[in-house]
């Protein structure tokens, strides 16, 4: 099992570098990205190579496989591969149909992309981190984190892309005027200027309240969308690291660390799938909300 291998490796790891390795340095080591500064001074102009490479590779594999199956898809009796991919597609399609009552030509493939990609990026957590990081280190990488979704850049990238799509769909559905109108006319209703002088104060206040609420909504959507996924995956990774840290303390630690590691890995399967599902559902919900008129 991967987890046991992992424990062994962690133990070896600890033995080899008993003097240099402290718990903080072990965890810190595994939470360091392989960063490549695009500009010499770094800062914002840095790329997390591990996140990008892992996620792109996974995407190419997953979507390449799906496209390969789709190319040979038959409307007759499907093979096992095609049946599996169709099952995934039908699952996503059902969710989209359940939420989205408009034409979903673009939303359904978007949801499928989000679901499959996030699922596989999350699933990288099952790989024994010391083996992966050690192998990459041997290949010359300064550091390596194999789970792209525990990088806040990746989750923000997904959430912000969805956010921009959401705004784009909102403008497409309501027109630019309708979109701007909604910014100050929802959720409390459109402010009306009348001859009554009180409304001259009331209307701007109402518009302001509406605008503030809309802003909170627009800011909280990508934040909660991305940070929920990030937090879950990051926490999962930390718990694995703590267990492997325990495994390095001695024989009992190794045994209990392995047992708990297996337990956590099994529970983590649920989290991995659930978080991918939640991310997809929120994507569909946000874009479906963008089509609603107030």
């Amino acid at each position: 099992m991967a987890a046991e291998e992992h424990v062994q490796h962690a133990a070896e790891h600890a033995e080899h570098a008993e003097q240099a390795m402290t718990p903080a340095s072990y965890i810190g080591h595994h939470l360091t990205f392989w960063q490549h500064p695009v500009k010499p001074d770094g800062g914002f102009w840095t790329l997390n190579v591990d996140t990008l490479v892992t996620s792109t590779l996974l995407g190419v594999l997953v979507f390449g496989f799906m496209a390969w199956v789709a190319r040979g898809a038959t409307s007759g009796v499907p093979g096992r591969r095609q049946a599996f991919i169709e099952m995934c597609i039908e699952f996503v399609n059902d969710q989209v149909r359940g939420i989205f009552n408009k034409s979903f030509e673009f939303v359904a493939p978007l949801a499928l992309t989000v679901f499959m990609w996030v699922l596989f990026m999350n699933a990288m957590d099952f790989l024994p981190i010391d083996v992966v990081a050690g192998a990459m280190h041997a290949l010359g990488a300064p550091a390596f984190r194999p789970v792209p979704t525990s990088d806040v850049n990746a989750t923000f990238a997904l959430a912000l892309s969805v956010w921009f799509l959401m705004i784009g769909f909102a403008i497409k559905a309501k027109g630019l005027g309708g979109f701007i109108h909604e910014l100050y006319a929802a959720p409390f209703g459109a402010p009306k200027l009348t001859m009554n002088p009180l409304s001259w104060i009331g209307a701007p206040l109402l518009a302001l309240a509406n605008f503030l609420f809309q802003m909170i909504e627009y800011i909280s959507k990508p934040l909660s969308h991305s940070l929920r996924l990030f937090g879950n995956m990051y926490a999962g990774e930390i718990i694995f690291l703590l267990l492997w840290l325990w495994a390095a303390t001695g024989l009992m630690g190794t045994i209990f660390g392995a047992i708990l590691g297996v337990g956590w890995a099994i529970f983590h399967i649920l989290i991995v799938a659930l978080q991918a599902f939640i991310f997809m559902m929120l994507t569909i919900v946000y874009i479906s909300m963008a089509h609603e008129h107030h």
Partner: protein
Amino acid sequence: MDINLTLIAQSIVFLVFILFTAKFVWPPLMKAVSDRQNRIADGLAAAEKGSKSLADASAKSEETLRAARAQAQDILAGANKQATQLVDQAKVQAKTEGDRIVAAAHDEVKREVARAREDLRKQVGELAVLGAAKILKREVNAQAHADVLADLAARV
């Protein structure tokens, strides 16, 4: 946990994958699925139609059978009627024929009786003439007394 260029790079990768999925993965698979759905629906409709036409055909054959049975019944009844008619006719014919034969026989008998009577009369007349001739002891001129003899014969 710092935000850096990865965000933008990852977004671009994401958009590429979305477009890829929307172009190369989703449409062919959905087409296959909906084609299959159509085929299944067509098959079900055809099966429905087949069972309906089967029911129609069996109803039709039932109808034909009933009609044939009724016709057979009619034919049978007609034949029976005709047969009795024929028998009746034959009976009537036989009766008239019999009557005719009986009538003819009666006529024949009557004629025979008449002839016999005529013969008898003639013989009686001759006997009477013979008797008279014997009595008179002489030859009676038959020719001379023919009218007397005829009168006698008519009276016998």
